[in-house]
């Protein structure tokens, strides 16, 4: 065989060898790609399957919630009036009054009254008594000031229980306790068992058998 033929054979063998090496590696890579795509398709299929009922369920939920919101807003407006209803909503959710109610046109234009402002108990007591409290005059709820100029001190008495308001002739006195008390008790050794009855004839009105 001539030398040129040997060189040709060597060249062809080299080319085939390169083809085999690179194509085998390419096949391996493509097989890994195919496996990965199978896993991806399985995952996407699961997503599609699981999300299929979402639209119908969410639509149903939204429809029910919309109906409830419309009914409650309508009821609130029917009972409290549009202005007070907007004021109540704005008080609970500041800024929501500007949006108004969905089913009532023009409700967003209503200036919400400050009906949901919260005052402390002391402030409200002062407002009820009218004791120089500015809130009694500038109360958001409006209405006349409750202060009684001529009998203002009686208003404070109304804060106490009825027994004190009625001014009974004689209220039972509070018992005297301590080392200077007219009735002295010795400490008992057991709970509920008195060592001996007190010798002092004090009239405290207390139960003599009590400890």
């Amino acid at each position, binding site marked *: 065989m*001539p030398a040129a033929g040997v060189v040709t054979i060597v060249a062809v063998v080299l080319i085939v060898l390169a083809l085999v090496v690179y194509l085998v590696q390419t096949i391996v890579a493509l097989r890994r790609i195919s496996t990965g795509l199978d896993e991806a398709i399985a995952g996407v299929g699961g997503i599609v399957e699981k999300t299929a009922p979402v639209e119908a369920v969410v639509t149903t939920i939204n429809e029910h919630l919309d109906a409830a919101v419309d009914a409650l807003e309508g009821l609130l407006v029917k009972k409290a009036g549009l202005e007070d209803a907007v004021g109540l909503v704005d008080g609970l959710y500041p800024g929501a009054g500007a949006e108004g109610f969905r089913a009532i046109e023009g409700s967003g234009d209503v200036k919400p009254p400050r009906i949901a402002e919260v005052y402390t108990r002391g402030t409200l007591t002062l407002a009820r008594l009218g004791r120089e409290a500015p809130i009694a005059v500038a109360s958001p709820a409006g209405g006349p000031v409750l202060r009684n100029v001529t009998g203002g001190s009686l208003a404070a008495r109304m804060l106490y229980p009825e027994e004190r308001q009625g001014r009974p002739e004689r209220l039972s006195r509070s018992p005297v306790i301590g080392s200077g008390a007219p009735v002295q008790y010795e400490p008992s050794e057991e709970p509920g068992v008195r060592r001996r009855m007190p010798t002092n004839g004090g009239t405290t009105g207390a139960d003599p058998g009590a400890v």
Partner: protein
Amino acid sequence: MTVWWIGNAVLLLVVLPVVVYLLRGVLTEAQAIVPSVQGIAATAAAGSKDLDAVPLLLTTQDQVIRTVENVAAYGGSLDVIVDDDPRGR
């Protein structure tokens, strides 16, 4: 004979490098796709797992329907008990 040698030279100096260059390009691109595909598969599997709670939406739907029914009943009672706004709206 001269033409044969020229053919051999072309085979070794042109054809073999071109074949190697093309095959290496294909192999490089194929290997570059593998991590991306594996990442997509992992993401799809994680996304599918995150959606395992979707059937709970049916429970949510039932609860919403019951709640709305109760709200409607409560609102109906309030409508009867509470007087309407005397100013009429």
